[in-house]
């Protein structure tokens, strides 16, 4: 599987005008392949610019974007091929739906790729399944659906192109907790099956801590930190510098440690938190029983 990487990229908007702004400043990140990378950063840190670089919607002012070791801008005329290999789901993707039926809307991307009927049908149904869209919904108009369902259809529309890299910009923004779980859970399942790379851009420390194998922290257009979740959340001070926070469960353990109730703070998901707290309680109970 081909990995995706950016090397020394800078993006400058409005060069030469008084509104000149450096959205990304000499950024180098190896996103690798077959894993989930979380990208976090404060508003205006360059996350969305980075996302649009990866599939060639934005051209870097300097530096290169490498997909499978090749510069995606080597042949600018074939940039649309890169867009099929790197799927990008924008924030609030439900506003891009336009077709008469859900099926047709999901098929829009694969059709543009030139997929034949048989493969197209398979791709659409497969993507729909992973995104939690029932068969009965496929013949409905996308405008009849609820907000959460629309979001699923839009994400399925990108997933159906079967990209090697799937970039999701705030996929769960504005959804209820159950909806978040279902959408991201389905996509993770899909990713695992395809062994593709998934990039999740999010504000939510909880989501990132839960799903990501590797985390990139952006701040003011620069890479502030990158590493495994353990490495990132271990250095809370540095995270605070980028106006970010720890996952709430980690914060809980920081407080517990202060009160000498817990020994470690390397807890990043609720599941792990529950396990640790149970262990702590059991230990105390057995301790009391012995005493």
């Amino acid at each position, binding site marked *: 599987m081909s990995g995706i990487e950016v090397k020394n990229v800078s993006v400058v908007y409005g060069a030469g005008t008084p509104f000149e702004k450096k959205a990304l400043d000499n950024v180098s990140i190896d996103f690798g392949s077959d894993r989930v990378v979380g990208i976090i950063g404060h508003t205006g840190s360059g996350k969305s610019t980075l996302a649009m670089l990866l599939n060639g919607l934005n051209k870097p002012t300097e530096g290169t974007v490498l997909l499978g070791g090749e510069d995606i801008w080597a042949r600018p005329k074939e940039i649309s091929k890169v867009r099929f290999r790197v799927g990008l789901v924008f924030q609030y993707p439900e506003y891009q739906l336009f077709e008469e039926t859900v099926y047709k809307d999901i098929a829009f*991307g694969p059709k543009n790729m030139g997929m034949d009927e048989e493969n197209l049908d398979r791709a659409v149904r497969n993507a729909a399944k992973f995104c939690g869209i029932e068969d009965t919904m496929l013949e409905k108009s996308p405008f009849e659906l609820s907000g959460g369902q629309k979001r699923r259809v839009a994400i399925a529309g990108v997933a159906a192109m079967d990209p090697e890299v799937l970039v999701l910009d705030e996929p769960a923004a504005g959804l209820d907790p159950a909806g978040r779980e279902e959408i991201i859970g389905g996509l993770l399942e899909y990713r695992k099956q395809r062994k593709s790379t998934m990039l999740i851009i999010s504000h939510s420390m909880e989501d990132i801590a839960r799903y990501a194998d590797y985390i990139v922290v952006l701040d003011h257009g620069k890479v502030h930190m990158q590493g495994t979740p353990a490495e990132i959340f271990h250095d809370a001070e540095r995270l605070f510098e980028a106006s970010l926070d720890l996952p709430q469960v980690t914060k809980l353990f920081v407080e517990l440690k202060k009160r000498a109730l817990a020994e470690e703070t390397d807890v990043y998901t609720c599941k792990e938190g529950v396990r640790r707290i149970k262990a702590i309680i059991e230990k105390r109970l057995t301790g009391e029983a012995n005493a």
Partner: protein
Amino acid sequence: MLKDITLGQFFPGNSLLHKTDARFKILILIAFLVAVIAAKSAWSFLAVVVVTAAFVALSRIPVKIVLKNLKPLIFILVFTGILNIFFYKGETLLLHWSFIKIYKEGLIYAGFMMLRLVCLVCGSFVILTYTTSPLDMTDAIEKLLSPLKALHVPVHEFAMMMTIALRFIPTLVEETDKIMCAQKARGADMESGSLLKRAKALVPILIPLFVSAFRRADELAEAMECRCYHGGEGRTRMKQMKSRFSDWAFLLLMMVFAVGVFFINGYGVRV
């Protein structure tokens, strides 16, 4: 690419033109337009050009920006120029080659026409659009048209619609940009193919755009109702428009100029 649209953009500033009351600016612009269109002789054109240049200088807007906005007009300028050179029938024949006849008067007339267009556009930009915020402009239009209320013309509603339309232009441009990016990410190709193919490629952009425009309109209407908006009846303004002595003087000067142009028309080369 859509963000490059600057036609009709307001540049905040503190020049004399910025400070002039918007109602007066509309009237000044009308006087200016009359003068530009009435100009017929070399001397009156010179006067018009000088006044236009004076307005550009007064607005303190960089000449570069003003000229940049003439760019989309180049085609029309060249077109009018060529049309007038070839089809104007005068007295002094300069060139005769098969059916093509070029007259000296034609050349002069073409020059005047192009000059007129440039002055028209530059003048109206610096007098009104560049130096007047859209809100001031609609307020001024409402005030100027208010006598029509007696004839039951819904002046306030028109002005409100204009304000809202202007307010939403940048929002819709941004929205279009977003939708275009999203569809491009799904492989939509908008830049190549036949005309029909390109027209078809607009569907995935226009439908979401309309849907979101309607949604926004609904939301805005509800928000306005929540704040008890009920039309223009008995509505007062936060910013009252006050005319100053200088506004009147400015307008008077422009009117004198417009009338003056009719007089100068009698002198110099004319067509």
